[in-house]
C-alpha cells in the first residue's frame, strides 16, 4: 500500500523498489548507521553482524527456491559449504575476491542442479529427501575427493581477501565487505521477485498446471529456482570462508540447513524481506540465549553446561514455534501491517 497522495502516471515508475522519498531516506539512514557502526561497536558485535550478513545471504537464496518457487530445500547449508570450499580453493590458487565470489556462487549453483535434476519428477516430501541427500553427501564427497583439491578431512585454510590490491584483513573491513555484498544480493533477490523469472517461480508454486498452460516449462523453472537459490548460498559460503579463514565439512551441517528454513519461516516465506527479518530475529535471539546461558554457567547455580545448552535450544525452538502460530505469514507480513497502519494514521479505516 502506498501513502495517500502518492500515485503514478507512468506504469514503469510504479515498479521501483523504493517508491517514495521517505522510503529512500530511511534506507539511506539505516545503511549509513550500519556503515558507521564499527566506530562505536565492539569487536564482538561486529563479528556477530558479519555472520548475520552472511547468513542472511544464504536465507535470501532459500527464499527464492522455497519461498518464491515452492521447492523444499533442506540442503542449503551444503550449498553454502560447496561455495566455501570452492572459494577457499580458488583463493589459495591466488584468485582475487571479485572473481572468487561469483565463481563460488556458480559452483554451488551447478552442484544444486546436479542434485535437483534427478529429483525433478518428484515434489514435496520426496524432493525434501533428495535435498537431504545433498546435505548428507556433501561431507562424504569433500572427504573422498583427493586431498589436494579440498583438503579432505582436514579442510582448507584461507588467507584474508584482497580487493583491488588492498588486503582486507581486519574485522571492520570484513564487516563492511559482507554488508556490501548483502546489499547487492538483497537487491538482486528483490529484483527477481518483480521480474519474469520471479513470476514464473511464483506461478509454479501457486498453480503448476496453470503455469504449464501459460508456457512455463516446469523443469527449467524448478532448476532455475535451485540454481538461483544455491548461487546465493555459494556467495554466502565464499564470504564465510574469508571470514572464518578456515573451512571444514563440520561447519556445514543439516542443523544449519534446518536453521535456515526456520529463519525463513519466522521472517515470512513470501518476500525477500522475510529472509532478512527472520535471520535478524533468530540470530539475535540465539545470541541473547547464548549469553544468558553463559551467565548462568558463570553464576554456578548448580546447572550443568549440557542442561543449559539443551534448555536454550528448547526455548529458542519454542519462541520460533510461537511466532509461527501467532503470525504464520511471518515478521515481514507484520512489518507490512505496521507500515500500512502508520500511513493511514490517524484514520484506521483508510
Amino acid at each position, binding site marked *: 500500500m502506498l501513502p495517500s497522495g502518492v500515485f503514478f502516471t507512468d*506504469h514503469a515508475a510504479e515498479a521501483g523498489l523504493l517508491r517514495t522519498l521517505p522510503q529512500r531516506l530511511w534506507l539511506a539512514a539505516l545503511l549509513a548507521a550500519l556503515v558507521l557502526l564499527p566506530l562505536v561497536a565492539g569487536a564482538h558485535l561486529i563479528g556477530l553482524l558479519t555472520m548475520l550478513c552472511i547468513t542472511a545471504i544464504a536465507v535470501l537464496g532459500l527464499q527464492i527456491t522455497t519461498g518464491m518457487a515452492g521447492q523444499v530445500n533442506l540442503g542449503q547449508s551444503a550449498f553454502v559449504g560447496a561455495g566455501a570450499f570452492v572459494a577457499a580453493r580458488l583463493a589459495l590458487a591466488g584468485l582475487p575476491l571479485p572473481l572468487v565470489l561469483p565463481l563460488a556462487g556458480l559452483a554451488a549453483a551447478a552442484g544444486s542442479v546436479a542434485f535437483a535434476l534427478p529429483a525433478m519428477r518428484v515434489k514435496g516430501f520426496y524432493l525434501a529427501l533428495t535435498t537431504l541427500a545433498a546435505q548428507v553427501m556433501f561431507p562424504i564427497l569433500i572427504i573422498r575427493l583427493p586431498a589436494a583439491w579440498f583438503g579432505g578431512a582436514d579442510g582448507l585454510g584461507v588467507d584474508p581477501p584482497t580487493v583491488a590490491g588492498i588486503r582486507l584483513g581486519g574485522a571492520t573491513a570484513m564487516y563492511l565487505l559482507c554488508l556490501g555484498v548483502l546489499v547487492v544480493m538483497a537487491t538482486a533477490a528483490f529484483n527477481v521477485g518483480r521480474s*519474469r*523469472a520471479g513470476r514464473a517461480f511464483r506461478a509454479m508454486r501457486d*498453480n503448476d498446471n496453470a503455469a504449464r498452460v501459460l508456457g*512455463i516449462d516446469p523443469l527449467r523453472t524448478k532448476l532455475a529456482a535451485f540454481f538461483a537459490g544455491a548461487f546465493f548460498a555459494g556467495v554466502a559460503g565464499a564470504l564465510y570462508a574469508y571470514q572464518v579463514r578456515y573451512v571444514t565439512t563440520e561447519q556445514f551441517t543439516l542443523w544449519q540447513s534446518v536453521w535456515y528454513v526456520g529463519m525463513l519461516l519466522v521472517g515470512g516465506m513470501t518476500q525477500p524481506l522475510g529472509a532478512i527479518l527472520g535471520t535478524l530475529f533468530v540470530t539475535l535471539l540465539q545470541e541473547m540465549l547464548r549469553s544468558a546461558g553463559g551467565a548462568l554457567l558463570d553464576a554456578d547455580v548448580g546447572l550443568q553446561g549440557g542442561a543449559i545448552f539443551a534448555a536454550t535450544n528448547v526455548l529458542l525452538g519454542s519462541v520460533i514455534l510461537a511466532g509461527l502460530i501467532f503470525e504464520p505469514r511471518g515478521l515481514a507480513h507484520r512489518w507490512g501491517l505496521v507500515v500500512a497502519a502508520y500511513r493511514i494514521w490517524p484514520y484506521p479505516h483508510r
Partner: protein
Amino acid sequence: MSAVLDVSGLTLGFGQVVALSDVAMTVQAGEIVSLIGPNGAGKSSLLNCLSGFYRPQRGRILFAGRDITALPPHRRAAAGLGRTFQGLQTYDSMTVRENVLSGMHVHMRAGLLDAMLYWPRARQEEARFTELAEEIIAFLELEELRHAPVGALSYGLRKRTDLGRALGLRPELLLLDEPMAGMNAEEKADLARFILDIRDARGIPVVLVEHDMDVVMDISDRVMVLEWGRVIADGAPDAVRGDPRVISAYLGQA
C-alpha cells in the same frame, strides 16, 4: 484456408472408461465453437488432450497446420494455444497485473541474470510488457484492481483475471472450460460480451465448454455435442437444437 485446429480420430480411455472415442473436430479462423454434453461426456478430457495434459491413445491434433499431438503443455502454449480451466486456477498470491504479465512469459526474454541485475535491458522489456498488460486490464475493465492480490477477489473477477492471463499469451486459439459455471446472470452476460469481443476485436477463435444453453445458442457460430465420448452432433446452433439425438441425450439426462 486451412483450419486453426484439426483433430481426427482422438481416442482416450482410462482403464475401462472410454472418455473419448474417435472424436473429430475442426475450428476455423474467427469461429466460436461451443462444446456441450451431459456431465462426464468427455468435454474436459477433450480440452485436456488439446492442451497436452492427457495423452490420447489414438488420433492426431493439428494446430495451425502443425502436428502437436506429442508436445507437452508448455510447448503447445508457446505455439499459441491458450486455455482457461474449470474452477479457479489463478495465481492467488499475485496481483491482477502480475497474473496477466505471467501470461506473457513466452513472449518475454529476460532470464535469471536479467532478473537479478534488472539492468536497462530487463527494465525496458518489463516496461514494454507492462503497457501491453495494461491494455488487457483495460479491455477487461479491471483497472481499479490491477494491484489487488487475486486470491482476495470475487469468483467472477478471478475468472476474468484468468481470461486476462490467457490473453497475455496472445493465443491463436483460446479454449475455455466452463468459464461461466458458478456465475450469476450479470457476470455471465459480462463474460459473454468479453468472449465476443475477443473474437471480434482480436480475431481469436474460441472453443467454449458451457452448460448454459442460452449463452451457448446466443454466441456460438457452431455447436458440437458430445455424449459418452462420441460426437453426436456438430452444426449451427439452430440445427443442433432441433436434433433428435441431442434432445434425447439431454432429456435422458434430466
